[in-house]
């Protein structure tokens, strides 16, 4: 089973509709371009980090978790920027990036997958004239989430079988037999969908 980034809770941000949080995130992103005062940026970063505890009840661990994912990049930016453009420019870029990443992660931490998917479905409805089918997109998202553990299990089975036969199992030697089984699995799933009237759903109004 796959788990999302969502951390259950009942805080102000958890109860805030996902669509509102996403719009706020876009506004923060646009607003950040206009701010070039380092002191103001630092203050904003503190506010965003503090809102993890104050408005979401998450504490500081998720802030670090979000930062850790870009740590290598941050080091690279500091190195390149400090050498080429000076320390202040480096600090500005890093702080601006941290604000954006922390805000974006905060939305993910406080929004359920189902709520985010509902926003996406509503957003995609605008593209219906272009042939986009929102309900079908939602179905494909659910199918992907189901297929990840299924494919992982196939990959593990193949590697276990190879180890049992004394083959030195690696990604390279396992991928052809695994993919053959994954394709057969995909055929079985599409036959099952067809048998349940998926193609008729395709043309239904």
């Amino acid at each position, binding site marked *: 089973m796959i788990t999302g980034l969502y951390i259950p809770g009942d805080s102000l941000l958890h109860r805030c509709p996902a669509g509102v949080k996403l719009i706020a995130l876009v506004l923060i992103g646009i607003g950040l371009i206009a701010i070039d005062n380092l002191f103001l940026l630092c203050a904003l970063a503190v506010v965003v980090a503090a809102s993890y505890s104050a408005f979401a009840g998450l504490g500081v661990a998720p802030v670090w978790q979000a930062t850790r994912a870009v740590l290598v990049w941050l080091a690279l930016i500091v190195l*390149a920027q400090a050498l080429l453009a000076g320390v202040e420019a480096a600090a500005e870029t890093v702080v601006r990036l941290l604000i954006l990443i922390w805000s974006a992660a905060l939305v993910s931490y406080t929004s359920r997958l189902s709520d985010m998917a509902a926003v996406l479905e509503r957003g995609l409805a605008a593209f219906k004239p272009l042939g986009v089918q929102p309900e079908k997109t939602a179905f494909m998202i659910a199918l992907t989430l189901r297929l990840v553990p299924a494919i992982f299990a196939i990959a593990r089975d193949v590697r276990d079988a190879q180890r049992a036969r004394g083959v030195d199992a690696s990604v390279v030697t396992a991928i052809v037999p695994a993919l053959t089984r994954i394709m057969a699995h995909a055929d079985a799933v599409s036959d099952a969908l067809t048998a349940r009237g998926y193609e008729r759903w395709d043309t239904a109004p």
Partner: protein
Amino acid sequence: MTARDTVLIATFAALTAVLGLLPPLPVPLVPVPITAQTMGVMLAGLMIGPRRGGLAMLLLLGVVALGIPLLAGGRGGLAVFAGPSAGYLIGWPIGAFVTGMLARGATSPAPLFAACLAGGIGVVYACGIPGVALISGISVPTAALASAAFLPGDLIKAGVATAVAVTLRRAYPRLTP
């Protein structure tokens, strides 16, 4: 879109996610850990063609954006689209599409490998490097230099993806993009 198209798109989105979950491939002389994930971009283009391959990558990015950490290293959520590597991610659907376009009708290894190089590496880097430069405020050449660290690993992945595609098209003839 038929049931088979739908399932193949979701299958390659999920496969690319699983490639990111597998332990990283050790590549000599390269300090950064190389995961097999970007091989999914090439495989999607080679195996299910440009349109479905591109949509598979788009679907994966959509699922990631919704808050499921399916990228290598357990990364996910909206934050990955705010980070410096966002450009690379945007390059995935385009890269898979271009790989599929160039690989159309090809069966021998050389054109398939060339398709992987152009789509899976060329297009992805062309989207990724300006993204790094833009978000981190460093110059494009510096960003390109930093990206060069991933090149040996990506070349190996292109080779593996080609070998897999050649073998699999023989093992599974029903699959013609």
